[in-house]
């Protein structure tokens, strides 16, 4: 039963992955990424991680991919790739390297002799929001607090980065406005 769900969605994830890296246009890649994320969410459900699956959909698929789409639109992504610079046999070399890496990972999987079985079915509360929350606020309290700090830093960083050019323009305009006002004030006092 689970296998029937696993195989198609795994295939979809793989297809999406290929789409991300092989699309000609950025928008296609973004949509492929969406496909991957959604398939993975289903797989999380299969693995009993309901809360995580929902988080995946809300944050990853719902926010991060949207961000990507926004930026693509903002930058008017043109099609295709400009002429490549650098080493020619790049594509082949990269594929070979990745294949080697995959082989290394496989060997790691084989060597750990992970038992074929996934293990006994987890208890009822496994993977629920309550379970996550409980663990979060007891054993992972410090990382939780740090995570909020990271979020704050990210927000500030993004704002600062985006504001850069805007600030200069605003200052220039206000200074011009100040200089324009002064002669009027002098005229009034005279």
């Amino acid at each position, binding site marked *: 039963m689970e296998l029937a769900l696993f195989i198609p969605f795994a295939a979809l994830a793989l297809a999406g992955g290929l789409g991300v890296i092989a699309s000609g246009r950025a928008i296609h890649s973004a949509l492929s990424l969406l496909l991957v994320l959604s398939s993975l969410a289903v797989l999380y459900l299969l693995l009993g991680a309901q809360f995580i699956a929902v988080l995946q959909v809300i944050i990853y698929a719902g926010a991060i991919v949207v961000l990507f789409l926004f930026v693509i639109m903002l930058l008017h992504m043109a099609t295709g790739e400009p002429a490549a610079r*650098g080493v020619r046999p790049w594509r082949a070399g990269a594929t070979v*390297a990745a294949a080697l*890496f995959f082989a*290394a990972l496989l060997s790691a999987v084989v060597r750990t002799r992970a038992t074929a079985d996934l293990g006994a079915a987890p208890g009822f509360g496994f993977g629920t929001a309550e379970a996550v929350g409980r663990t979060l606020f007891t054993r992972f309290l410090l990382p939780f607090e740090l995570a909020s700090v990271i979020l704050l830093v990210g927000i500030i960083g993004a704002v600062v980065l985006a504001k850069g050019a805007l600030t200069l323009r605003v200052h220039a305009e206000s200074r011009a406005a100040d200089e324009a006002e002064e002669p009027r004030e002098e005229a009034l006092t005279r």
Partner: protein
Amino acid sequence: MADFAWTIPLWPLLGWLVLGLVGGRLPRRLVALIGCGTVALAFAAAVAARATFPGEPQERTLFTWIAAGAFSVDAGLLLDRLSIVMVLMVSGVGLLIHIYSVGYMAEDRAYSRYFAYLNLFMASMLLLVMGRSLLVLFVGWELVGLCSYLLIGFWFDRERAANSGRKAFVVNRIGDAAFLIGVLLLWTSLGTLDLRAIGAQAATLGPPVMVTASLLLFTGATGKSAQLPLYTWLPDAMEGPTPVSALIHAATMVTAGVYMIARLFPLFTHPVTVVVVSTVGALTAFFAATIALVEWDMKRVMAYSTISQLGYMFLAVGVLAPAAGIFHLTTHAFFKALLFLAAGSVMHAMHNVIDMHVLGGLARPLRYTAGAFIIGGLALAGIPPFSGFFSKDLILERAWEHAVGGGSPVPFILGLVTALVTAVYITRAARYAFFDQPHRESHPHEAPPVMLWPMVLLALLTVAGGLLGAQRIGAPLLEFLAPQFAAAAPHEAAPGLFVPVLSILAGVAGVAIGWLGYRDRRDPDLGWVARLFSRHWYLLDLYDGVLVPAAKRVAVLLAGPVDLGVIDRAVNGIGALAAGGARGLRRLQTGYVRQYAAIILVGTILLMAYWATR
């Protein structure tokens, strides 16, 4: 050590510091006061040391100089009979010459620099003769060499003076190299550099080591004391101020070699060393005297005379009569300094002219100077009752005993002949300088009192100094030194009057020849003999023709292929290697992010492979 005795080298050192640092800003009177005052204090301390001398050697350690594991050297001073004699002579004669300099250098611009250097020299020389270990002696040795360089080239804007200073330093260096090797040899053989210990343990050295060490040290002495073959710097050293010539190149520095051998006397008792030292001394004495016979520059005559008399001193220590050598050292200091000061007075009167061709007829205007010169000259010629006779005669007696006792007759024969030649050349110089009126328009005038009084005192010492060694009154100096030189060759009582009569005859004959033979202000035509003498027996041709080009070729070889080719290439090669390595590594920095990612990937794969196979 009596508490004040160790201050003897200290006063002049302070004088050098003060005059060197602020002397230029002080008034001349004060500079003279400090310059002479420090030496006077040193002399007073020396006299007090003699007065309170308990008879046994006294030592004092100033500080630990080197402490490196098993090797430790103290900077220490030694006060024994020999050092008392040397200190008295050095500080006493030095004081007189300092006072003389006040007058002689009165017109000079660099007044304070002169006295500063002179004080530094005094401190160095006193350190040399008071040092307790061979290393302290060597420090003093090198320092006096430095002061010699500084003072010869005192008027450094004169090219000849600067060159002469450099020549003195370089030639000394050759001797010093041999000296150092000798010191090292002694250190490795005996494990100590303490002078008294070396003397006591000298007998334990095997003949090869003893002879080698003594000859190496003797080579150093030939450099410092201007003996064959390293004598060439002393005549040129006359470019310096005349008081400097009197002090350094007559009385003190050049005697350091004799002192060193006397100090380490037990080391020089091997028959081979005896032959070498006495023969070199005798040959040098004769050789230099012949050159003085044909020189026309009065100071150079003095210089060769000094070389010759130093030869006598080495002859003495060579035949194992160190007390005689020290005795002659002392009397020579008196009369040679006197002669130099008189020559300086002549230069002062004749506006620095020293060429004997144009001198003459100065006896009347420069009465005192002439008197001083004549007294000094008679002492040099070995005419009794002047001091020179007693000391030179003693050496000849010892040489005679050495000859009849189985040693070589060469020292005695050469010594006697040289006495004759010495009398001739000094009489010739006196005649040319002071007698036989030439045509002259200028009116030379006598020296000022500040220059005359030291000459008077030195003349008194020259006359009376013989008493130090007169047997009739117990020969006070020799008796005083006797316990010091226990290893010296025992000598029978003086062999009658045979030797003294011979030496007096030689001296008188020489004076007669000198007076009568040079009447017309012309050297008699001796043909090839004169040419031999004036060409230094063709020794200089040997140096310039053979030794110098060989040395130059070695220098060129070292500078070119060795220094540039090997050393520079190695050093530059390392730099090039670093630069090349950096250039190669730089190619990794392309700025392409994807390349960086690829390299990270490669690294990760390697790491995983490593972990996978562990």
